[in-house]
């Protein structure tokens, strides 16, 4: 078989917001059908990496490829073609407030498949059932709880069965039972459809359940301080921040 381009390649990503350097020289590669976790304390720049990887923001330095297309390049058409194959769950869910939960999920399906209305409705119910929001189709985002918004956002990200799924803290704000259901769902999607999943998370439980490989970033170096399987990170890393993270302890960094 011909060698395939990796699903996501980030090379030398450097980000500056105003005078503040947020990320310095971050490089990593995610291959097809992998579940890849980005770990790090809050404010370390996890969401920033994600926002650059999906092309929402342009980095000061560095290059990013999705399925071999360089999205930091100049080619706009290639960029929009790539977007259709990407599903994104934002940290704040980003549901459209004037539409019901069902309409939010139906939006990409109607727009990009051209299925008749009853088929779209059926798919909306399948997707909402998948995330456990069976009877909330007609609720407005302002009428459901934060955890439910997260799940509705996930249903919308899954709507078109994307090849690459970016999840920014999918289980933050969820109860442990629902959180582990989401973990199972992530695994199932990955196994059934071969979806590549890049997940930003704090949740130790879900890291070990779902992630095949992970990187950890930290404010102290503004970059990656450890890379490998979650077990490797936990057992072999000598970095005090990594150790502290897995032992749920704060380590004073000088």
């Amino acid at each position, binding site marked *: 078989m011909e060698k395939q381009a990796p699903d996501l390649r980030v090379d030398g990503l450097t980000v500056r917001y105003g005078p503040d350097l947020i990320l310095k020289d971050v490089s990593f590669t995610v291959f097809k059908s992998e579940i890849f976790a980005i770990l790090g304390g809050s404010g370390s720049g996890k969401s920033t990496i994600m926002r650059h990887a999906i092309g929402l923001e342009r980095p000061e330095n560095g290059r990013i490829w999705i399925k071999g297309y360089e999205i930091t390049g100049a080619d706009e058409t290639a960029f929009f073609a790539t977007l259709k194959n990407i599903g994104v769950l934002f940290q704040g869910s980003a549901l459209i*407030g*004037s539409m019901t939960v069902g309409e939010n999920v139906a939006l990409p399906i109607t727009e990009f*498949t*051209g*299925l*008749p209305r*009853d*088929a779209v409705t*059926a*798919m909306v*119910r*399948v*997707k909402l*059932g*998948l995330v456990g929001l*069976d*009877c*909330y*189709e*007609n609720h*407005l*985002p*302002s009428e459901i709880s934060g955890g439910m918004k997260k799940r509705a956002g996930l249903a919308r990200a899954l709507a*078109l*069965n994307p090849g690459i799924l970016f999840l920014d803290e999918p289980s933050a704000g969820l109860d442990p039972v629902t959180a582990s259901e989401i973990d199972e769902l992530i695994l199932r999607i990955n196994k*059934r*459809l071969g979806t590549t999943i890049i997940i930003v998370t704090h949740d130790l439980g879900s890291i070990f359940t779902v992630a095949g490989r992970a990187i950890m970033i930290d404010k102290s170096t503004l970059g990656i301080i450890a890379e490998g399987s979650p077990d490797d990170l936990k057992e072999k890393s000598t970095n005090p921040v990594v150790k502290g993270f897995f032992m749920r302890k704060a380590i004073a960094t000088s």
Partner: protein
Amino acid sequence: MTTAFRPVSYPQYRISQAPDSGLVITFSGPLDIKTVPSIFKTMPGALKKISTHRAVIDLGAVNTMDDYGVMLMAKIRYFLNLPDDGIEIKNSPTFLEQTLSQIEVDYNSKCAIARRKPENIIAQFGGTAINTLFDIRFFIAFIGSTVLSLLRVIRSPKALRFDDVLTHMKTTGVDAVPVVALISFLLGLIMAFMSSLQLKPFGANIYVASLVALAMVSELGPIMTAIVVAGRSGSAYAAEISTMKISEEIDALFVMGFDPNLFLVIPRLIAAALVVPLLTAFANLFAIAGGLVIGITMLNLSVTAYVTQTMEALSLFEFSWGLFKSCVFAILIAITGCLRGFQARGGADAVGSAATSAVVSSIFLIVLFDSLFAVIRSYW
């Protein structure tokens, strides 16, 4: 009754007849989000003409299938109008078993309670009436608590957030000077020009100065300024407060022991009441300057003559009356803007409608109160 028909083929599927006179649909290739939409374009039409009591779906040649494919399986039964047991799925790939069990066919019975029925017209009418009553109650309570907060400030002036007052004085007043100046200068220009057309034939050029000054100081100045402020700041008040309302910031202030009115309404109210009359005075000045330009360039009046005539036409009472009115308008704008902000409920679109209704209601109230003032003066 089942009728015989010739087999038909499409790129992804083939419809044929089984020996037992049932229907066989044979799918091949991928059955996923990329292929299912095109199948939906042909299949309903192809199956509609056929009447059968039984159908077999053969998935032996399907290599990949996702939930879009599963949804298609569920829909075939409806295309053919068959009962639950009228469909048999053959050779389904192993991965499919789980997927099939995921689909929720009987949504209606499961979510019967969660579904909302549209109300009939009487219920809607009643609902609107009740909501209006609640609105009125809210309005009265809001005015009451604002007055209470105001009394608190008067009793202990330290409770006033003075920095906020200054900020709002800047955004409501100082920042509005350019637009108010420009509008009223042009207004003065237009008034002088239009009235000169009428007055010139009578040789009454000099009265253009009186007309511009009187009209502006007692009516147009306060009204124009108030409308500009309603559009600029009334909407901003409503947008700021409604954003805080829907993101629970106001609830947070409340449980921390703050009086949201004291925190949010009073500074805006005081700032507006102080700066809008000043803005009106500016507007008057610029309109008179606009009139002066016409007077000098088109009516052969001297600057001294124009200014003297203007001073003669105006009395201190007229001037103060205009400023008093604009102070009242300012209070109306601030109260309506804040009230609409507090009334916001729901998502981001509530911010937009709060801002819109703040502007519409304050302009309505401004005009209403201006007519009241006119009536009061005529019976003075």
